[in-house]
């Protein structure tokens, strides 16, 4: 860690990125419910309202569709809004503006406008908030051309990818796993970007490629660590961007390891891992495969309230260990 690195939490890293962007560019402003004096449902905006005032840290009424639409209109006309949803589940109210307007506007208008809006979605389970406050909906937005969709897994990436998103001329959707907010990690001071559209090989290995997203990156790294003792050597790729997907990095890895396991929290069916799997199955890496492509995703149920059920709903380290072991040992 070099001199300018400090340990920051994921939430602090996001906050710092927003502060840097707001400092540098008058057009950047924050919108969302209770992001002002409350500091945001997850304290991500924190005290920014004190630094930048209520005109740039705007509490919106509880109006997700209208609020998102205001952000879209503002982005089309010169501002650079960052819109926070309190929970990604409430995106269900705003998809009209996100998908029909923000994503398609440039195309429908033949390239005459850009929509540089950033939307932030606290996502995922693990907080006991039950079925309407725990969903992982990144696959929906990953299905939509015109959007860019990212899932940073570390404080470093959260800051760098958010700064890249703010600089991006097109709409960028950021899914932030709530359980990551308090996770700490090294974060450089000042401005830097982490490119959208590049996966990251978090750990090199030769026996199996694990492509994981968001919090599952950490669980997969833990699993890899555990399997090391058994002599199983796992490569862990942090997908980081759902759309556009970094196919090359994954393909090269699978060509090397000949095995692929996709790990994600969202409902397994039609989750991001389905795309990763299908992409590999139609790529040149297909011929290198020595085993079926396995996906570990969320159970096919809404997220339950009871903590034991909740945990059982999404992949945990032992599940990853078992699936990886089976794949490498040829039990599958």
């Amino acid at each position: 860690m070099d001199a300018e690195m400090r340990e920051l939490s994921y939430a602090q890293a996001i906050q710092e990125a927003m502060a840097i962007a707001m400092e540098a560019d008058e057009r950047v402003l924050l919108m969302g419910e209770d992001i002002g004096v409350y500091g945001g449902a997850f304290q991500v905006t924190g005290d920014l309202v004190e630094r930048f005032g209520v005109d740039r840290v705007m509490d919106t009424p509880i109006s997700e569709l209208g609020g998102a639409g205001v952000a879209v209109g503002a982005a089309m006309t010169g501002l650079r809004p960052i819109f926070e949803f309190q929970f990604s589940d409430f995106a269900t109210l705003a998809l009209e503006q996100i998908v029909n307007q923000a994503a398609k506007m440039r195309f429908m208008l033949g390239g005459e406008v850009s929509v540089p809006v950033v939307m932030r979605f606290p996502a995922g389970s693990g907080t006991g908030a039950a079925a309407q406050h725990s969903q992982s909906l990144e696959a929906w937005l990953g299905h939509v051309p015109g959007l860019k969709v990212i899932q940073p897994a570390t404080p470093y990436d959260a800051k760098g990818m958010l700064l890249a998103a703010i600089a991006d001329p097109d709409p960028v959707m950021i899914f932030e796993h709530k359980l990551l907010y308090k996770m700490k990690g090294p974060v450089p001071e000042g401005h830097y970007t982490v490119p959208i559209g590049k996966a990251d090989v978090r750990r090199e290995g030769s026996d199996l490629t694990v492509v994981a997203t968001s919090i599952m990156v950490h669980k997969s790294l833990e699993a890899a660590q555990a399997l090391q003792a058994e002599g199983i050597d796992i490569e862990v790729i942090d997908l980081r961007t759902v759309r556009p997907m970094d196919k090359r990095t994954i393909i090269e890895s699978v060509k090397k390891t000949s095995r692929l396991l996709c790990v994600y929290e969202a409902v397994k069916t039609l989750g991001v891992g389905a795309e990763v799997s299908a992409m590999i199955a139609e790529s040149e890496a297909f011929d290198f495969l020595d085993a079926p492509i396995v996906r570990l995703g969320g159970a096919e149920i809404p997220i339950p309230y009871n903590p034991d059920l909740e945990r059982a709903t999404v992949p945990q380290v032992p599940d990853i260990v078992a699936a990886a072991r089976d794949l490498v040992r040829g039990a599958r």
Partner: protein
Amino acid sequence: MARKAVLEKAAPTNLPFAYRHYDAGQLREVLRKMYLIRRFEEGAEDCYMRGLIHGTMHLSIGQEASAMGICMPLAEDDQITSTHRGHGHCIAKGAEVRKMFAEFFGKTTGYCKGRGGSMHIADVAKGNLGANGIVAGGIPIAVGAALSAKRLKTGKVVVSFFGDGANNEGAFHEALNMASIWKLPVVFVCENNGYGMSTSTARSTAVRNIADRAAAYSMPGVIVNGNSFTEVAEAAHAAIERARTGEGPTLIESKTYRYRGHSKSDRNRYRSKEEIEDWMSNRDPITLFEAELKEFGIIDDSGIEAVREAVRQEITEAIEFAKASPAPDIGDLQNYVYTELA
């Protein structure tokens, strides 16, 4: 009955609605339930603080008169939709606190068998179609239930509870409009506690009173002191009658206050200690109701003490029940997603 006679001797037209309309036993039961709501939430809060309950919860302490005033005039099979701040509505509509605690503890004996938690408690048998984690999410559902009542001619009335913050959601607008054009038997109850999370109505809402928006749907808009059981009950009674006789919906704005933070993550930086203190000391709904009951001779101090003691007992037992209840089996993870076909 003796007390009722006393009441009848008093000049009836001067008596507030509730004291004309309900007998002493009913009024004492209202007091009991107001205590039950408060102690239930205090108990839940305590269990949460002690790490026995996970997730979050939204307490309605300070809003008990509103829940009771609205539900008292409802028939048992009338229906309600509720909110994230719904424990009061749930108890007022007849729920058993032990099954509520069991739900908080994530147990199979809970109202949702541990799948829903605080934000999804429902009691369909008693007409509570459920709390809701989505602000304003229950409003169109209530209108749909009212449509069923009308089409199936059940005679039911549906009440939709929601907060002041919810009135800025599109769902509020769309639902009230439909209820009005179709003259459905539904009553919209906005419990205005001054804030949607940290955002005051002044900062979020373009009208002074939520009830002022009723005109945009050609329905009556009524403002009541939400901390006065009798005021709330009177307005609810009229609106429910109106709905039941086919004259269509009403919007009631019940002005009240929540003492606790929005949820367990609230730093209370958007309001002053003085403001909270003022409501607690001078406008507490239970204190006000007790004073009235005593004034009209319906209960005395020892009667109140008995109510409190009974409630304390019920809460203690309910928590014990919840603790002792079995947790769901991990093997049942997939249950209840789809209806099991016979």
